[in-house]
């Protein structure tokens, strides 16, 4: 089983500790992880803003970068959903525009091997208790693309519930979008900020020490809003909680 980490550009640049946590976690579970350096961005910011043609080279790059792997694990619901839902669309549209099957083939190659981290743990490794220890009160925000595009369901919550020492508290209005939405956050800044403010208030009201998600891009927005509100709740990626052990809490 050859497993690659798809770090995603946001994690690579801004949240390297999340990638380090994934590596630590998977290695602890006996999985050797590769990191093909040809990888880059999934293309979601371009695609979701309307620049489909700018996304196409990144589809090719993704397929090529992970060609030698059986599984690609991404610590991001949103980026995994981009590959799984939108790469086939990009391929189909290119074919419909008379540009052949090349992109559709690249998509077909990428889609079945791409997993979001909690999916990979639950569905492929078939573990729920990853042997983690995290002595904090945590609330979980299901990010939209993980929740609705990937259908992660209870996977993240089940993994968190099995963590020693972790006190999981319910987040009111959990299923509501935090308001990040990629370029939406700046194109419709007022609405985005209003959504973020409501989300942050709900998070703070839980009394949790940390808010956990499967997406650092949403966390960037949530954490930035929490900080601006003066909240002490800190955002933490699920990989960092699952990587934590008694001797090494992230």
């Amino acid at each position: 089983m050859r497993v690659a980490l798809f770090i995603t550009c946001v994690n690579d640049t801004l949240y390297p500790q999340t990638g380090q946590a994934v590596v630590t976690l998977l290695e602890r579970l006996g999985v050797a992880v590769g990191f093909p350096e040809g990888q880059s961005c999934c293309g979601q910011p371009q695609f979701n803003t309307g620049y489909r043609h700018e996304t196409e080279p990144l589809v090719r790059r993704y397929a090529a970068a992970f060609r030698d792997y059986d599984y690609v694990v991404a610590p991001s619901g949103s980026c995994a959903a981009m590959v799984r839902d939108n790469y086939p669309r990009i391929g189909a549209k290119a074919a419909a525009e008379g540009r052949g099957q090349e992109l559709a083939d690249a998509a077909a190659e990428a889609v079945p091997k791409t997993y979001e981290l909690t999916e990979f743990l639950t569905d492929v490794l078939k573990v729920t208790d990853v042997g983690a220890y995290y002595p904090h009160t945590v609330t979980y925000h299901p990010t939209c693309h993980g929740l609705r595009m990937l259908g992660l369901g209870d996977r993240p919550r089940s993994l968190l519930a099995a963590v020693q020492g972790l006190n999981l508290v319910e987040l009111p209005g959990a299923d509501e979008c935090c308001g990040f939405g990629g370029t939406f956050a700046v194109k419709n800044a007022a609405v985005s900020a209003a959504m973020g403010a409501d989300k942050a208030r709900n998070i703070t009201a839980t009394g949790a020490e940390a808010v956990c998600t499967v997406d650092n891009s949403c966390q960037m927005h949530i954490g930035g809003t929490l900080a601006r509100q003066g909240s002490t709740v800190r955002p933490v990626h699920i990989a960092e909680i699952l990587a934590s052990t008694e001797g090494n809490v992230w």
Partner: protein
Amino acid sequence: MSGTHQATYLGMPAFPVAADASTRNTQLRANLRHATHTIRAKRATAVAELDDWSPLRAAGAAIKDRTLRHLDHYLEQLEGAVTAAGGHVHWAADADEANRIVTELVRATGEREVVKVKSMATQEIGLNGALATAGITAYETDLAELIVQLGDDLPSHILVPAIHRNRGEIRDIFAEKMAEWGRPAPEGLTDAPADLAEAARLHLREKFLNAKVGISGANFMVAETGTLVVVESEGNGRMCLTLPETLISVVGIEKVIPTFQDLEVFLQLLPRSSTAERMNPYTSTWTGTTDADGPRTFHLVLLDNGRTDTLADTVGRQALRCIRCSACLNVCPVYERAGGHAYGSAYPGPIGAILTPQLRGTQSELDASLPYASSLCGACYEVCPVAIDIPEILVHLRERVVEGGPVTVRGTRTVIKPAKGHAAERAAMRAARWALDHPGVLRTGQRLASRTRRFHPRRLPGPGRAWSDTRELPKVPEESFRDWWQRTRGGSGTEGRTTT
């Protein structure tokens, strides 16, 4: 009379501008939050009662797809059946033509007043304004439409056009304005919803009893039988459909369904999605005219007005499945905060964000901004009873805005240019793609950012302010993941490496 003045969506600003104002309106925010959260929970309960919701939803989508793929066939069948049942069928290619047809039909009756059932199609074409210009007063009879009309306001929701008004505001509008339009509000009117409903009942009763012409839309038209269906709650629909001598129904061509049996799907999907009821209080069906029961004359005006342009787009076509339930509005976090008026059309919310730019095109600044009025959270798609993939169409339309491309405008295939105002963004996207497609460049950028991290401001100037006005910026780490991997793993596991 105030009926001659018509509020209009024309000339409204782009969505972000309007939404920026409405998010700061605390009263509006509170009204919308209360209303949408109330209905959200109820809908979930009503839907959960049916353990076959998923197959019902799939059947609803499939019936609509069947109809749309053979729309010419079903419209011809419908026309034949309506005509055979004693109705008159008219075709309107656009709003102006529909308005002209209806105006002439009303004129031919000699009447100067009409009663109206709430109808999205007549809102879309601005029928009330056209009638007013011709000296004909249209009385809206749905409670929420009455609130909007009396308040000289615009609808902001598909199901509940006055959702932006709370009970206190409604009381004030009734007390102030009812007398201008007919029977005044009762003395000492309170803001209790039951009292407000009673005031509307008394105010409108004289209109119903005297009405000679009724105007409606329809939720469904059955091709096989020529049967029209109106789904409602208050009984104002029944009044308008049965008491007048002449009934004129303006209906979008996409509202046709193949068979009477198909109603078994939609009459389960619609009420639970819309008002969150097992069944709405009243559903009326009629087929042409019936001897000595209901209107003696029935006119059906079939409306295109951009629907065939929408049909021509194989991705956007699915928007025509819409049964106007408004479930997508009620779950939408953007709608909840921006309010319906920001969408600048009779169709607000997620469905409006995909329907309006298809019906009207993406040429105006407002219409070009609508596909971006979403965080793509997907809640709308999840609740849509006919499974319209709204996020997919939003992204598809964003592409049309920034890249241009082939579209159908008023029936003619054409290629549109990218919308204005996206040049800087396009350049940035291109540059970003280039960097991302050259990981070496990406790494250089990351290292530069890390090296200068101590000098990064907390708040950004220029366009970056849109972020940093309300959110702290993330701190750039000392080292990217890429560099950490390189440093600690020495390039192991880099089999997939490509040249940069």
